[in-house]
């Protein structure tokens, strides 16, 4: 009984920690499916976190406490816009100006963390040392959309129905993204652009439009991960330390889940578990630092395995990271 409880608690915590990763990963999956390798996820998460928190905080200050759904919508929207803006910069530099994607992404990571940090700290200083929202809102952000009796089902109740709104929105998003990529014409075209832009171009598909849209929407989705972390795990205060590294993990997780939105679901929970294992499953002879590198170790192992396995289906999009220029032949 005791172990079962421990496992359930671990899983619930893993979901909490994994939800920001889920958004970061889903957004980056969409971006990379268009052939754009946006390494700036870290910066995008920072911007999403700072601007999402700022949106909710100032909204509450100016207009009074919004209702639950409105508060969630404001947080999501502000973060999304911040991420979309950052990705617009990325798209312009890489797709229109055809600069190197890796360099641009790294620059965006540095730029985004700087901007996020600046905005977050400025809010804190302006507010006199401490930025947070009312306790009602904090409760809204961590609450689950399901009624109490469902959460009371033994063992699975809390696990399945007790997570935050954001987790369930993320699940719906992952399923939608899966359906979009697999079942719709636009999804097929997007994949064609990411795989072989020259072919897509010759077939009359606008490569530039698809790359821009996928990258901007993807960046917006990634940024939501930042605000989700701030308003759930960090307790609605600006906490850059907890957020740092999540973006890089998301980039790794995209590889881990082989560019598939549905795999991102369990992948993010697994990575969430790896991130908090040091708090939950302490073995005295293993230093916590070793625990903390677990997600990265798993990523490296997965990278090795996926490159060994010569499966043509489980490969990155063929055009990933390459600028497309029609006149190059």
């Amino acid at each position, binding site marked *: 009984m005791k172990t079962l409880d421990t496992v359930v608690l671990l899983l619930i915590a893993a979901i909490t920690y994994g939800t920001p990763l889920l958004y970061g990963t889903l957004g980056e999956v969409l971006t990379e499916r268009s052939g754009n390798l946006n390494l700036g996820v870290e910066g995008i998460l920072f911007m999403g976190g700072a601007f999402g928190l700022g949106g909710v905080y100032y909204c509450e200050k100016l207009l009074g406490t919004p209702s639950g759904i409105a508060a969630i919508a404001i947080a999501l929207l502000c973060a999304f816009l911040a991420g979309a803006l950052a990705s617009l910069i990325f798209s312009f530099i890489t797709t229109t100006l055809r600069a190197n994607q890796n360099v641009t992404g790294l620059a965006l990571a540095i730029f985004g963390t700087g901007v996020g940090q600046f905005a977050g700290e400025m809010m804190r200083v302006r507010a006199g040392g401490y930025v947070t929202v009312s306790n009602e809102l904090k409760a809204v952000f961590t609450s689950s959309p399901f009624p109490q009796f469902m959460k009371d089902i033994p063992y699975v109740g809390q696990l399945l129905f007790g997570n935050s709104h954001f987790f369930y929105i993320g699940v719906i998003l992952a399923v939608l993204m899966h359906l979009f990529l697999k079942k*719709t014409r636009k999804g*097929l*075209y997007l994949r*064609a652009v990411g795989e072989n832009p020259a072919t897509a171009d010759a*077939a*009359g*598909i606008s490569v530039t439009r698809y790359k821009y849209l996928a990258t901007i929407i993807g960046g917006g989705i990634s940024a939501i991960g930042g605000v989700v972390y701030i308003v759930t795990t960090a307790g609605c205060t600006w906490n850059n330390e907890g957020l740092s590294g999540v973006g890089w993990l998301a980039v790794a997780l995209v590889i881990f889940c082989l560019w598939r939105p549905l795999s991102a679901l369990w992948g993010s929970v697994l990575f969430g578990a790896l991130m908090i294992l040091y708090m939950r499953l302490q073995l005295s002879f293993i230093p916590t630092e070793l625990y903390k590198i677990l997600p990265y170790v798993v990523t490296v192992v997965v990278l090795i395995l996926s490159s060994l396995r010569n499966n043509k289906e489980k490969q990155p999009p*063929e055009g990933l990271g390459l600028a497309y220029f029609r006149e190059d032949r």
Partner: protein
Amino acid sequence: MEKNCYAIELKGITKHFGPVLANDSIDLGLQRGEILALLGENGSGKTTLMNMLSGIYLPDAGEILADGHPISIRSPKDAFAHGIGMIHQHYKLVNVFTAAENIVLGMEQEKKLDIKQTNARVREICQRYGFEIDPEKKVYDMSVSEKQTLEIVKVLYRGAEILILDEPTAVLTPQETDRLFAVLRNMRSDNKAIVIITHKLNEVMAISDKVAVLRKGKYIGTIPTAETNPQALTDMMVGRAVSLNIDRPWNDQQTERLLVRDLSCYDHEHVKKLDGVSFTAMGGEILGVAGIAGSGQKELLEAIAGLCPIAGGSILYKSPAGGQEELVGMSPMQIRKKGISLAFIPEDRLGMGLVGSMGMTGNMMLRSWRKGSGPFVKRKEPKALANKVLQDLEVVTPGIEFPVRKLSGGNVQKVLVGREIASSPSVLMTAYAVRGLDINTSYTIYNLMTEQKMKGAAVIFVGEDLDVLLELCDRILVLCGGKLSGIVDARRATKEEIGLLMTSVGGKEEA
């Protein structure tokens, strides 16, 4: 009246690429129910012309008529709208998609994505023309000929009435070629207009109803296939070019340098590129290599240089000093360590030959970086060499540290050639050494080759201009589809003879 029945008619089509005139006022008519072969040497403007029909390039002047009405084709979409479909030499397919998914790409008229319905239609098209293709097969699982079939089905699915095939047989086996021709004949009976770009004369004779010949961007004429023969076509294709005067001294101190026996290679797509080639390259002569593009010239040079994996055969190197060495299985570094001085001037100058963002000095060092002791490179000698090359070959550059990528094609080639001959090679291999160079630079390069020959080097010169090969080389080796078609004496051979050897092994017409 007769003109009105052209499905597509080109009138006075002209296209420039910068200063290069690719197509000069070309008139051409395509009829339904007819296969037209478009014939011409490399760079004669065949592909450019067809790319204008398929919406990839825009003509500078001239007009295109469809069934007698002028049309404008501004994009691949416009071309589809007029029923023109082109099958490119390099297939445009997404590897991880199924055949059907590739076919529906860019098809906007159908609202819903219904792969099942597409599959059914693909099967119907296949049955009608005798294709064998599984709509649910992924492209990465397909053979080259299946991919080509898919490209053809793709344009037919879009309702193409006019099909353009750009060198469709270049990568096919003879059996696959026969199957393709059967399909083309089926389409001809279905009243479609078909253009096939090729430079294989036997295929022209086998499949086409009419032949249109281009030479250096100019339209020479169209004749019914039944009224001509390969010899006459070669004459039309090659024309009577101005004779070049290249000084060709005879080096009477020829020694055997490279003995190549039964050399075979495959490329990364497992297509056999060289098939049992045997020859001997002599020191003190220029051995020309002729052949249609992609007949194995590149692989031959790369195999000798140790860059291309060898499937079978031997390459025996006899050094001027008397020793001999088997080169098969050695890496370029090992070859160098044995003291064998091979110089290779590759086709892709900036890709394989030079580092574009470095200056001349840095590029000179690519040959000598192992010299000197300690962790530091010696810059003095390469710098002196760079200056010497700059002066001897009259390289036009703002300075020897200026990135070579920004130099003109001719100057880039001079830097590369200068570096390679500086090592006084015993074997000098060049691939298309004068491609894209103006006439003056070309002559400089020819003279450098001859100079090396007189110094006793074995020069292997892969070229595309037969006139030059005949003027410059001592002997000419002709490749045809990876096989050795023949070796001729360049002083006695005629262009027609070589042309025939290029298109059929041994120069015999194939039935």
